[in-house]
């Protein structure tokens, strides 16, 4: 698989053989922090491609926006990645080597991301890069990653339609979030009609396309589809349209500052989300966003994602405690932050499974790498470099947290090129 690096070869990584089978065949390869404590293997064995690995350290890169408009969103990811690195170091590092990170600022500017990637790969020879947030930055970085054969661990839920041998996608691709969310609304809430609303760029548009196809398949109706420019702050007209169309569900993928305006204006227009008429299902409002919107404005909306801070499992309790200890009690943790936390861990497991830092060697062992201490519960890397993960539905409370009201029985298979949804 690792050799299929051409663009044409991306798609046929193959669809998984189904959940059960994969579980059975791959469970055996799990190993957690046990083998790593063995004698530290010599550097020339584990690093044949000149990465920045010494006998006791290994360098990785963290590449997010610290400045500019995206800094708001990306800071959580930086914190999570640093936390994971710290924890890995405390537990003995990777192949006996302590992780050192080089942090670069993408400055919310896509060429800067590409430049910094080039710097990290060419000058610093980092063994892995944890970074990027927007699709645009990932798209800018991608050719560089492929050219210098780096490995990017990308945390954001995104639109799919991509499968690079040089990226591990630790967030969900669109179908994982959307299909489960819509199925839930239809089954549990009896939804029949949907109004699709998003900011005007690729992720909402692709997501709504998938949603629309899925709704069509279920024989239900989409009564409206609407996009507003990024940063738009006046939603009165669309609110009126929604009132006119009376959908059962508003399916919202509005992002950034627009979010704040949208929910405040919905509330002011007399829409009480707790009445669920219409029900609002979002794929873009994490706990992070609620802080800006204000919990009282979103009480009663539902979000469909893989992680909520309130998830009740021991992994998550430890994670939340560690995160708050590191960064303060008032921190909130959203879906992407958790996904960013997975990156360093998944890289560590892959390195240790491959017994090498070489990118080509770890690429061969990715499929099936598991992380059962993941805050979200359990994840596993699919052959297509995305993660198997569960999707949850949360209901927002005034305190800015979600109550998890539903989770999928089984792991959702990642399907970045969903047939029948394009």
């Amino acid at each position, binding site marked *: 698989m690792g050799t299929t690096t051409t663009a044409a070869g991306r798609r046929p990584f193959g669809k998984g053989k189904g959940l059960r089978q994969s579980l059975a065949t791959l469970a055996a390869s799990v190993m957690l922090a046990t083998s790593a404590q063995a004698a530290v293997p010599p550097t020339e064995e584990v690093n044949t491609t000149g990465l920045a690995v010494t006998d006791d350290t290994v360098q990785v890169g963290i590449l997010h926006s610290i400045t500019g*408009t995206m800094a708001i969103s990306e800071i959580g990811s930086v914190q999570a990645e640093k936390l994971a690195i710290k924890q890995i170091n405390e537990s003995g590092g990777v192949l006996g080597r302590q992780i050192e990170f080089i942090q670069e600022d993408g400055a919310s500017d896509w060429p800067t991301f590409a430049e910094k990637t080039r710097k990290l790969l060419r000058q610093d020879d980092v063994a892995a890069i944890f970074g990027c947030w927007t699709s645009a930055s990932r798209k800018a970085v991608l050719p560089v990653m492929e050219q210098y054969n780096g490995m990017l661990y990308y945390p954001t839920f995104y639109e799919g339609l991509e499968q690079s041998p040089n990226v591990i996608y630790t967030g969900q691709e669109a179908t994982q979030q959307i299909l489960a969310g819509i199925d839930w609304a239809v089954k549990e809430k009896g939804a029949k009609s949907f109004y699709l609303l998003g900011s005007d760029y690729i992720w909402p548009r692709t997501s709504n396309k998938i949603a629309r196809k899925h709704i069509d398949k279920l024989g239900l109706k989409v009564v409206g589809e609407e996009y507003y420019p990024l940063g738009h702050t006046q939603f009165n007209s669309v609110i009126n349209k929604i009132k*006119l169309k009376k959908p059962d569900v508003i399916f919202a993928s509005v992002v950034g*500052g627009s979010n*704040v305006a949208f929910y*405040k204006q919905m509330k*002011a227009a*007399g829409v009480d989300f707790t009445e669920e008429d219409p029900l609002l299902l979002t794929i873009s409002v994490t706990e*992070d966003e609620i*802080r800006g919107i204000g919990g009282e404005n979103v009480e009663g909306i539902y979000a469909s994602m893989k992680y909520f801070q309130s998830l009740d499992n021991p992994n998550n309790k430890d994670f939340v405690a560690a995160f708050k200890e590191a960064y303060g009690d008032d921190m909130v943790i959203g879906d992407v932050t958790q996904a960013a936390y997975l990156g360093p861990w998944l890289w560590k497991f892959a390195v240790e499974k491959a017994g090498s830092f070489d990118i080509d060697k770890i690429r061969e062992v990715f499929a099936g790498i598991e992380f059962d201490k993941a805050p979200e519960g359990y994840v596993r890397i699919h052959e297509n470099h995305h993660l198997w993960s569960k999707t949850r539905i949360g209901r927002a409370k005034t305190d800015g947290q979600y109550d998890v009201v539903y989770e999928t029985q089984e792991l959702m298979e990642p399907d970045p090129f969903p047939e029948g949804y394009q």
Partner: protein
Amino acid sequence: MFDGYTTSELMSIFAMQGFAGLSLFSVFVLMALGLAIIFGQMGVINMAHGEFMILGAYTTYLTSGFFQSYLPSLFGGYFFIAMILAFLICAALGALIEWLMIRHLYHRPLDTLLATWGLSLIMQQAYRSIFGAREVGVDLPDWMMGAFQVTDLVELPINGLFVMIIALSIALGVYLLMYRSTWGKKVRAVVQNRPMAEAVGINSAGVDRMTFALGCGIAGIAGAAFTMIGSTGPSSGQAYIVDTFLVVVFGGAQSLIGTIVSAFGISQAQSTMEFFLSGSMAKVLTLLVVVGILMLRPEGLMALKVRR
């Protein structure tokens, strides 16, 4: 798109849509008034206008926090205090900026544009350092949320009404100040003939500073009002820049009435198009129409025809 609706339903929707247009109108008026004063009366382009608005919004945020912690019983009324504070703080900063920067740049309007852009970058980063990069949530008293039920179907958002009332009162206040007060006469005298105004004993430097401060103060009130409907974050102010400038320029720079007329025209056009088209295309079309009209009629809607 109107199949299957009763007439009364349609009427209600149109009523609410008309109201949506009006609240967009009041948002535009609030945004543009401060700028119109500064630009129209002084010829200064204040690119940091959006950041002054956000300063007002942060003031509201802090005031709300203060009331919640120390005077919870008075929380319902904190918003009025916040608006006054927002005005004072923004006006004070405006006066300072005028003294430090703007006064050296009169008659170089393009340079004020660049300098205030620099100021806006600094203010944004200052917000980021002080309040964090994330948007802050401003808590509002309960009475401000929710809607005013007119008929079964027609609901008017209270905060929309509130913004409208603020916009109209400030517009009226500015009108009285500029056209009915001694101070306003002085301002207009300085605008029309600075040397002559100085010769008759008007302290033109003082008038400039007050005018700039007033414009910034109004931006602060606008920012306070916008916490009800928009986001409060370090770079939220940028979202308003293009719209605000277009409203002012479209109205004809030296005419306050023009600013209001243009705010009305643009808001109605945009809100109507938004209803019938998708949001993005409505925005593009509105901007295109405004730019197109400005190309045909560069002096704006209401400019006086004067000897040039």
